[in-house]
């Protein structure tokens, strides 16, 4: 039933996936700010070194609440139906995102060049 080609496909896909994950993990750098984007437009940025809780309120009554704590950002509450963004782990590396697709709200970590130099200096 299962052909040799199937096994090659499974192996190739898993190796490709693991390879990309490895590459991302090796090249990732600590970020310093979180950028909030709504409907693809930049809304606001927050520094990661100040603990805070903020609620993004949309014109249509929907909302997303996120917490910055210990240099990490986590979505803690949202009005969306699937709550995928709330279940997402906290983020702090450059270019990491938490996306709330139903509300079209994106949190993205940015601006980590200084930290990168610090990390190398250490």
């Amino acid at each position: 039933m299962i052909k040799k080609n199937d096994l090659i496909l499974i192996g190739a896909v898993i190796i490709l996936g693991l390879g990309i994950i490895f590459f991302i993990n090796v090249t990732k750098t600590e970020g310093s700010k979180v950028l909030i984007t709504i409907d693809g437009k930049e809304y606001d940025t927050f520094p990661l070194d100040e603990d805070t809780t903020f609620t993004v309120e949309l014109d249509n009554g929907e909302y997303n609440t996120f917490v910055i704590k210990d240099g990490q950002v986590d979505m803690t509450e949202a009005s969306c139906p699937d709550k995928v963004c709330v279940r997402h782990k906290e983020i702090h590396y450059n270019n990491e995102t938490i996306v709330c697709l139903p509300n079209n709200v994106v949190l993205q970590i940015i601006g980590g060049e200084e930290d990168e130099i610090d990390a190398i200096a250490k």
Partner: protein
Amino acid sequence: MKTKKIATYGLLVALAFILSYVETLVTIPFPPVPGMKLGLANLVVLAALYTMGGKESLVLSVLRIVLVGFTFGHPSTMLFSIAGGLLSWILMLLFMKTKWFSLVGVSIVGGISHNIGQILVAIYIVDNINIAYYLPYLLITGAVTGTLIGILGAMIVKRIKNVQNT
């Protein structure tokens, strides 16, 4: 349309509907990709592809997405399902015709392309290329769930063929 074909359509739509519902009950605790799905409904598209044909499996896929979108799903996620559903249907059909893979390999192609289709729409909608970060995880999960769905699919195909031949 022959009666047998109508009956098979009904059988598979019902199965797809039930599997989609089951899928909403199951959340997979896979931290890198919250909201990951098993792709159970792909079983039915796969089964239709092998027992009824390309056109019929497309009809089933679209019917399922629309039905589920208006019942257990959310209309806002329907666009993602359609993108994933169409891309995986096209690629599964192509790879089935090449005969390079068995039904299991075709199922893997379907699982992975379903994920890629959804990610592409997500990148377009939120206008942020960084969502592609999930792609390597989705390749791996697609390969694993695709294999399981393929093995189950082969069993279903065998049974549908038994019914069709009586």
